[in-house]
Structures are given as structure tokens and as C-alpha cells.
């Protein structure tokens, strides 16, 4: 029994020493996520027209806050717009331009534009990767008659660009993983 007492004292004393030495721990550093895309800004420009800007911003990433989606104005009918996409990581200060990373890995990325049935508009790619397939950071949008509906922008990582219809912008065979998906309500007036 003496031995038991001795051992138990030793154990509790050791535990105590452990617990004392822990108080001077320094606080851990925060992780600023590097790959996160918080903001997608799509600028549509046309000769003689004001720019139309579509933006989605989700500053807390997969946190509970919803993305803030804004559309700066209406599109004009029967107009050809040049579109460009800028991606930012605004959790960093200054914000990091993620578009460059996508452009660097153009072979592994592609944007798709899905025009909802209510909206009278067509889209087409105006850029290409090293293998001649589209990336979709730059595109054309031709508006039709007055109408309103949705347009969805989807960025796929590692899509199968050679599958049927994919290089023409058909997402259904594209596979890969979705990095961005955002839907905007747009009117042509």
C-alpha cells in the first residue's frame, strides 16, 4: 500500500507539473485562407453603353452569411457586350487577384454561362487555353429582345474539355468540380 501511495503521489504531481507549464503558451496565429474566392465581378461593356456589372461577394466563405449578389443595371436590347471576369480573395488585405491563378492554370479551368429560358441572350467564348479550348474569363454576350431571366456563371476545376459540346459551352458533359456557381437576375430593357 505504501508503494501505491507513493506512485499515486508521483502521478498526480507529474500531472500538476504538466498543467503548470502550459500556462505560458503563446496564442496561435490565424489562418488566412489563400485559395478562397470571395468575390466574382463580371463586367459587361458595349460601345456607347454604360457598363453593366454583376457581382457576387461572400466574405465569410462557407460561413453562415449569404453571398451578396448585385446587378448594377439593365442590359440594352440587341447589343453585343464584351464580358470579362475578375475573381478576388478579399479575406486578404490588400485583396488578392485570383483571376491570375485561374489564367495560369487555364488548362484545368473553364467557365460556363447558363442563360435561363426567360432571358433572350446568347453567349460565346472569346479566349482560349494553350490547347485552343476556351477558359471563359473573357466572353461575348449578345442580348436579344426585351426580356428578363437568370444567367448562371459556373467555374469548373478539372473539367473534361474534350468531351462532346464542352468547348462550345455545354456544361452537361463537363464533369470536374464546381469552384464557383452564381446566378444573377438580369433584365433586357
Amino acid at each position, binding site marked *: 500500500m505504501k508503494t501505491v501511495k507513493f506512485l499515486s503521489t508521483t502521478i498526480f504531481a507529474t500531472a500538476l507539473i504538466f498543467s503548470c507549464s502550459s500556462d505560458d503558451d503563446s496564442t496561435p496565429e490565424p489562418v488566412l485562407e489563400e*485559395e478562397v474566392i470571395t468575390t466574382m465581378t463580371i463586367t459587361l461593356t458595349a460601345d456607347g453603353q454604360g457598363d453593366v456589372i454583376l457581382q457576387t461577394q461572400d466574405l465569410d466563405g462557407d460561413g*453562415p452569411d449569404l453571398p451578396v449578389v448585385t446587378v448594377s443595371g439593365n442590359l440594352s436590347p440587341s447589343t453585343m457586350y464584351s464580358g470579362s471576369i475578375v475573381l478576388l480573395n478579399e479575406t486578404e488585405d490588400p485583396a488578392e487577384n485570383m483571376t491570375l491563378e485561374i489564367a495560369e492554370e487555364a488548362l484545368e479551368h473553364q467557365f460556363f454561362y447558363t442563360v435561363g429560358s426567360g432571358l433572350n441572350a446568347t453567349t460565346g467564348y472569346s479566349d482560349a487555353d494553350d490547347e485552343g479550348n476556351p477558359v471563359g474569363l473573357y466572353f461575348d454576350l449578345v442580348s436579344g429582345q426585351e426580356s428578363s431571366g437568370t444567367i448562371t456563371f459556373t467555374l469548373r476545376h478539372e473539367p473534361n474539355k474534350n468531351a462532346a459540346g464542352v468547348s462550345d459551352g455545354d456544361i452537361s458533359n463537363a464533369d470536374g468540380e464546381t469552384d464557383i456557381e452564381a446566378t444573377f437576375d438580369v433584365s433586357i430593357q
Partner: protein
Amino acid sequence: MREYALLILFFSSISTMSQNCDNTLSGRVTDIHNGELLVGVTLTIANTEQSVQTDFDGFFSFSKLCNDTYYIQVSHPYCLTKGYKVRVLGNTNKSFKLEHHIEELNQITIDGKAFKNKSKTVLESSINKDELERFSTGSLGNALNSLSGVSSLNTGNSVVKPIINGLHSSRVVIMNNGVRMEDQRWGVEHAPNIDINSAGNLTLIKGAAALQYSGDATGGIIIVEAPKIAVKDTVFGKTSISGISNGRGISINSRITKSNLNGWYTTIQGSLKRTGDTETPNYLLSNTGVFEKNTSIKFGFNRFDYGIEAYYSIFKNQLGILRASHLHGAQDQVRGISSPVPLIINDFSYNIDAPRQDVTHHLGRILGYKELGRRGKLSFQYDFQKNNRLEYDIRRGDDRDKASTDLELITHTIQSNFESNRSNTLHIKTGIIGRYQKNYPNPGTGIRRIIPDYTKYDLGAYAMFDTNINESLIMEIGGRFDYTHMNVYKFYRKSFWESRNYDTLLPEIVVEEVGTQILTQPKLNFYNSSATLGATYSLKENYNLFFNYSLASRAPNPSELFSEGLHHSSARVELGDLQFNSEVGHKFAITLQNSNENYSFAIQPYINTINNFIVIEPVDVQETIRGNFQVWEYRQTNAQLIGVDVDASYPINKKLKLNHQFSLVKGYDRSRNEPLINMPPANFKNEIVYKNSEYNNLRISLQSAYVFRQNEFPNNNFDVYIPQTESYELVDFSTPPDSYHLLNFNSSIDFKTSKKTTLTAGLEISNLLNTSYRNYLSRLRLYADDLGRNYLLTLKLNY
């Protein structure tokens, strides 16, 4: 305690004080295994200190005894000491049988004895060395799966987590060579970091009755023990090599032991396994290769009354996760689930690419024990574990080859255990334990920590008593108390912190605000009590009835407390709650068992009621810039699991034997009145074994395993809008797959290659009919079928 033991002894022998004292008691003592006469056995009559030894014919004799009942302790240096109650009426003849282990060392385990029962009132299931060797190319989970009441939660074929009576992960404690495994077992895709080839025996205790190991095993305890070592001057070992057809792999493992008559011994063991992509009957499962490397060394010095042992093992496992299972938001899930074949099928490869895991586990322990004569046995142990888990995801840019999860968990434990031999009828086990644990999540991953920085302190103490009330009744009672303190540094997203109202509830734990994040320092305390109460009653004709009640308390794990964000490997947002308290389980188990030469069976019904049971379930769909993700939130509820395990075997003749197994478990959330998720479906196994020991130990078996469809499940399906089709589509995570039936073939034969060496050749064919099936308990069932036929050819040399 000592007084108590004496008191028991006193009362138990009070009846010996009587008259007419001129009788003799004589007889022989034999070995229970082979009936050999045992020489030098000491027999002592309790309370009189009258003591005799057996002679060269195993014969003993007491004289001058009264007509009364005596308690006699029968002991031998190489046997377990046993106590008997003997009624003396006139000159009486009585023989005793002892379990004799002359060739084997008194194994160093916490218990001090090799492979002995861990609990007196729960029927234990075990897998011995020969059976284990048939699983040498598999995992711990595969081997345990062969026991009734055990299923596994799988992520492909390489991550196999045991489920005991419907419970898994933090609710299952694994003791590896006397060390409680601290290998981040909270995650469903975290397999136990144990090399099956390092084990000599596996014991399963369903429920928390074995309090000497832990008080929080609401599911059960798995005890992995090293093989026994003979105490003589010898060198022996084995080497085996296996070819695996499904995965086109190879597995090698080897072990060598040197022991000396003076008590010194050393064992070195190593194993290596490499497989490539596995396949279903119809397609390849891309990126499912495995590369596993393990080694362990053990040395020690062992005498009957004292000993010391050191053990060190390194386990390193790299494994690929099915490429097609890596999907992002709900829209991607719709594609993955609805596709009849995996979305990505590449050519066969041995490469292990992202998504993949790379896990290293170090385990070291030093143990010493001392027999304190009649007082008992005292042991002291220190152990150390370091678990490093790296998980690699599909990433972009500079982070491409960087791990997305990098966790280092370090654990130090000291403990002391004492076992009393003072009384023959009362057996006492007691001990204290202290543990320090530190988790370090590397911030260099560039992804927010999935498990926060924490330090944890545990202090525990237990005592267990078992006593033979009479020859047919054993009672057991035990209690344990554990105190846990956690000191945590956790970064919360400000938006989450406020949405949970923590800013008004817990403002005092905020350390600082850093951009969009808040650093907090929660300090948590848990006080857990656990207990067990049981009885074993021996009925006539080899029938035994076991009854056990166990109370288990488990502190919430870091994942349940601190999850907050997207879990990439399951493509869902997981939210914990730092205000959780301990879950408390009450398990009642009854077992009726019979084992004789004509047949054997065990029926084990149980009911496990768990208050504050922590479940994770979907609550919402969250819209993010990356698409929609399902939100799963942990909550506490009252759960109940009811089930039965049945084992039966029946020898048709000396060479043919039938084995049967049936397991059923039903789990319910009693607060919401709905079934629990991931409950194993009922399953039925039937096996016929042919074994001929006269013909090179030829063994052939054919097993049929039928797994029913799980018909009770919570419906967690939800709809998601698909812009391309402008429609809502169902994301079906819940519906279980159909029932299935598999046939497995196994055979082996021994060849004596020399006087000291035996070569064993084995052929095993699993999924003999190449059946396509999906397993409800596999996380990858949504995206792909399970494995097709596999041929496994093994050559093993024992020397």
C-alpha cells in the same frame, strides 16, 4: 481495502470453527489441459495457514480437519492461483485442476496475465493468432468484422472503422499493447492506426464493463495484445508473403523473437503492403491504392515476480480516396450520385494522388511490474504517442501539393495498477491514470484548422471487485471517475460567432479579433463517472448466464465541440457546439452461453440507452459562392440501441463444422422518434469448415454472408436547384442500398519443411461470385460499387 479483504476472508471461514477434527483431505492436482500431474503445487487452507505441497505424483494430504467447509487456495508458480470451497465429511478425497502455462512467460499486460478475461460478467469475443493470420493483408477492422455484433464504417476498402453494437469512432476504445490509442479516432474517415500483423490476440468487449481501460467506451473496447513469448533459450519467427489480385498488390510481413531462459527477450516485427487501384466487377476504382509500412520492437526482462518491458512501434499509411468521390457542392453531388458509374475512371495505376491521406503513428511504452507476494501485484506504465495526420485535397496554384489538413496529436500517459491476490474469493483491481495531450494543427496548410489547438489533461481512478459468491455465482462491481480539462485556442468566423449568439453568451472567452475571425480561449471541464455491476451464473450442463449493467460517460470530442465550416472530405458544412456536455450511456446486457463438445452457442440481447447522445444531422442548405452545401449540425439527444447477437457452431463430425452468426441492432433517436443514421443492417453469416489435422492441417472453408437492406433510416434528402435544367433535383444521401449476398472461400495447408520449420500455403477468394453490391456503411456507396472478386495467395514460413 486491505481490511475489507480480510473481513471477507474472516466471514467466509467463520464456519470452520467447529468440532470432531480428525479427518483427512487428500487428492491430486492435475493440469486442466492434458491431465498431467502437477508437482510442487501449494495448497493453503484459508484462515489456518495450514499449508501442504504436492509430491512427485501430484498427491497432497491435509490432516486434522473437522467436518466442515474449507476454503483452499491452490497455487503454482506457472499457474493461475485458484480458490476452491471444499466440504469435508469424514476422510475426504478431492482433486483439483489448474491451468498450467509452464512454457509461457507471465505475459506483461496491464493485467499481468496473458489473454485472460478482462471482465468477469460480460462474454468476450476474441480472435486468436491463427485466425488473425488469415487477415494479415487486411486491417484491424476487417478482422473484427468476423465477430458477431461488429460491422465497419468504411471509406473504400482501406479505411475500415469498427462499429460495435451500432456505435463507432469516439465511442469505441482501442487498447494496443496496453496503450489506449489516441489517433484522432473522432473522424469517420480515420481508421485505427494499428498493424494487424503486430497483434497476437484480439479481444472484444461490447460495452464499457472493463473499467480498468476506460470509462467512456459506450460502444465497446477492443484489446490488441502482442503474441506470447516462451521462456526458454530459443529463436523463432515467421515470414509471410501474399499476392493480392484486386489491387495487384503484395504484402510482406516478418517477425523474429529471441528469448532466453534467464528472462530476457526481444521481438522485432515489420510489415509492408503496397496495392494499386482496386476494382469492382465492372470498373476500376481510380486512386484507391495503399502503401503501408509498419515496424515494431519489443524487449524486456521477465521473471515470475518482477519484470520490465519496452515497446516501440511506428505505423505509416498512405492511402488514396476514390477520385470520383471528391465533389464540391450539392449540384456536383447530384451528378455524382445519379451517375451509374463513377464520374472519373482512369487507367490502372499504383499512384496515390489527391485526395489522399498520409498518417504516421508512433507508440512507445515502458512497463514494469512487481509481485508483492500475497499482497498482490503492482504495475507502472508510461506511454507516449504521436499521431500525424496529413490529408491532401484537390487544390489550386501554389497550394497544389500542400496538405489541407495537418494535425499533430501528442499524448503522454502514466498509470499505475494494482491487483490484489490476498483473497481467493475476492479479487480486486484498482489503478490511477494521468494523461496529457496536445493537438497542434499546422496553420501552414492555408486552410482554416478543422480541429483547434488544444491541451487536454485527464485524471482517472478506478476500482473493481469480483467475488465468487459460491461455486456457480460470480459477482462483479466496479466504479471509475475521470476528470478532463481542455484548454483550447479556437478561431471562429465572426459571422458564425454572432449567428450562434456566442457574442452575448460567452464574451469572456474572446482573446482578440483578427480580421473576419475571432480568437477565443474556451476552458472546458468534464467530470465523468462510470460503473459496472454484473453477475455470472453457471447453470447445469455447461450453461452460463451473464448479466451486466454498465454506466459509461464520454466527454464530447474536439470535432463535436469545435467543428465550424466546410469539411472537404465529406463536402458538407459541419457545425459543433462548444456548450455540449458529456453523454451518458446505460447498457444492460444478458448472455446465455453454452459450450460443449456437441455444440456451442451464445445469445446476447442488449439495450443501450444513451442520454445526451451526440448526433450530427442535416439542418439546412447553405448558399455560398461555391454553390450550395448541406449544413450538418451536431446536437444532443436521447438515443436507444436495442439488439441481439447470436453465435452458434455445430460439429457434424471430427472434420466438418458449421458456424453461424446473426446480428441485429435497431437505433432510435427517442427525442425525435426517428431512426439513427448509419445503423448496421441485420446480417447473417453461415460457414462450413473442413479441417483435417491428419492431412497436413488441411483447412477449407466456405462462408456465406447475407446483409439485409437497412429499412430504418432518417430521411436527410433534400432538393437543390440546377440552373442548367431549370429544375429542382433530389440529392439522395439517405436511401440505403439493396441487400446482398457474398460467398467467400478460404483454404490452407501446412508442409513440414524441416524439423523446426513449417510452410503454410493459403488461398482465399473473397466475393467468389464477383457480385456487384453497395454497402450502406460505406461512405463511397453513393458514387461507386464495392470491391469485386479478390484472390489472395499467401505463403508463410514458421521457423
